[in-house]
């Protein structure tokens, strides 16, 4: 890491200013003691609330654990049961459907918006407005959209009816509920990803576009031939972030539909929550968490590979 080089000279320089070697090394020993003292809270937090629970989560998924009694080792039973659990498979399907809609729309909207912003205006004010939904709670977004999408009184349905259409049960119709949840999620997160993509665009030297213009390239051509390839690393990162976030969707579903109607929006995280806190089957819920985790790992690595995220054409 390049950063190491920055600090390295410092202690050496200091040592030359202090003739007696012993005092320098005792200062260094003092440094070590102080360092461990300073990182002690972080280490404690890391062990108790990150490392231990991660391992414990893996362990619990091989047990029958109902919280009130001790966990009982049952080997792969949870995973075998999972294989035959139709509700699990349908919730996985629902989640994947949600992820595809959310990710596709988020990427489309945020790349378009970022590019348009970049070509049109440097106004921080507009960028700040775009980020606004990112700052509020999922719960607030869920409540506001429940109101705006209400079947009888919601402004969206009133507008649809004014235009001659029929009112839509956005959150109560089985066919509409997942796309609606995806749209709410896009509204909530696309501003954030737009800013990330915009930051990526800012790292592209403007001379490249000047050169492109001299070669007679139009805006569309420059976007396809210059912007997209140069933006690939950051787009890969945004894609991975969005996919991981979408797979763990929970708050908005819990507040608006609780998985309904008739399990039509029962996403995985919702099912896990229901198993753990509705039926107190922590072993089974842990097993599902582990499966979701494994999928996320595989998907992230696959995406990074496919998009060759670590390489930039900029060199």
């Amino acid at each position: 890491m390049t950063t190491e080089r920055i600090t390295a000279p410092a202690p050496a320089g200091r040592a030359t200013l202090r003739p007696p070697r012993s005092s320098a090394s005792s200062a260094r020993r003092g440094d070590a003691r102080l360092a461990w003292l300073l990182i002690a809270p972080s280490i404690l937090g890391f062990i108790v609330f990150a490392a231990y629970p991660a391992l414990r989560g893996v362990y619990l998924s091989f047990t029958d654990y109902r919280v009130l009694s001790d966990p009982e080792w049952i080997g792969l039973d949870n995973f075998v049961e999972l294989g035959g659990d139709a509700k699990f498979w349908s919730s996985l399907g629902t989640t994947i459907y949600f992820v595809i809609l959310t990710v596709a729309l988020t990427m489309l909207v945020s790349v378009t918006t970022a590019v348009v912003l970049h070509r049109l205006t440097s106004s921080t004010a507009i960028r700040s407005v775009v980020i606004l939904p990112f700052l509020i709670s999922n719960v607030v977004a869920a409540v506001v959209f429940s109101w705006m999408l209400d079947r009888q009184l919601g402004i969206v349905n009133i507008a649809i009816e004014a235009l001659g259409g029929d009112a839509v049960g956005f959150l109560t119709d089985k066919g509409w509920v997942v796309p609606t949840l995806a749209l709410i999620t896009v509204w909530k997160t696309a501003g954030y990803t737009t800013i990330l993509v915009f930051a990526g665009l800012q790292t592209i030297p403007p001379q490249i576009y000047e050169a492109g213009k001299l070669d007679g390239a139009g805006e569309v051509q420059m976007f396809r031939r210059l912007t997209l390839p140069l933006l690939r690393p950051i787009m890969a990162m945004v894609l991975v972030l969005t996919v991981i976030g979408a797979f763990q969707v929970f708050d908005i579903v819990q507040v608006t539909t609780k998985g309904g109607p008739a399990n039509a929006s029962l996403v995985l995280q919702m099912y896990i929550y229901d198993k753990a806190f509705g039926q107190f089957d922590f072993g089974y819920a842990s097993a599902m968490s582990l499966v979701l985790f494994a999928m996320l790992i595989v998907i992230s690595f696959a995406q990074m590979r496919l998009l060759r995220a670590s390489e930039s054409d900029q060199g």
Partner: protein
Amino acid sequence: MAITTAPAPASASATEPEAPAARRLAGRRRLSPGRALAWVYLAVVVLITVFPFAWMLRTALSDNFALIQNPASLLPVDFTWGPFGRVLGLQSAADAQAEGGSGVSVNLGGFVVNSVIYAGVATLCQVFFATLAAYAFSRLQWKGRDLVFGILFSALMIPGILTLLPNFVTIKELGLLDSFAGLILPGALFSAFNIFFLRQFFLGMNSEIEEAAMLDGASRLRILFRITIPLASGPITTISILGFITYWNDYFWPLLVANDESVQPLTLALGVFKQSSPQAQPDWAGLMAAALLAALPMLLVFLVFGRRIVNSLGFSGVK
């Protein structure tokens, strides 16, 4: 990992001065159809972004009965502060019913206090401990430093789904369910991202002043609190804002560990309020007032720190 070293917000904005020059040139060109279309697109995006906030305010200032008669009005229907009074428990039951309240008494005041305690204390602890650790990982020389940092850094790979349930069990075993300690503890001691972010800043920061103070015989701790932390107040403020936003908006963790109203944050109360609304005749005006109340601190943060947030998010992404 290619990491743009340190003075984060500064470097993000540093690229801006050259960019506008190029764009000013572009702006002088006539407005081509393509550019006009792009402006229209941008206007639509801004409208869609802002409209729900406007609608929230418009509804929160309406009489809930009158809303039914005139659901499409862009301005508040039968203007009243009632919904805010209602959700803060300031309106009498009779008045509330007359304006379309559900009759269930709600008082969000206590939940606002809970949210302030939860988000405030958690952010304070998290940033404080991250600062100490980042200092140890950048300014102090000790054996195993990079190894320990690498191990802690690996925590960024562990997603919430894997640790939420076991952490709930841990908090339960510690007897901390329904307490602020239980809410705050898991995130307060350790945050990989904050340590990483501050360490990057410290590494890029000139250490001459600190070394001079050291030669004058100041102790390491004194230097940390009197020199390093004040010099790093910019990035420390940034991660504090981001941390406060995250905690203020947190829903899942409180949902697991806070069943008692005395510690529940506003997000939980809002969710309960929404779900306990009668299906036939929900108090939308009251709900929007409550939602606005929950969003208000974030809107204030946005007004004061919007620019800083935009710049720092850009940085955290490009890392």
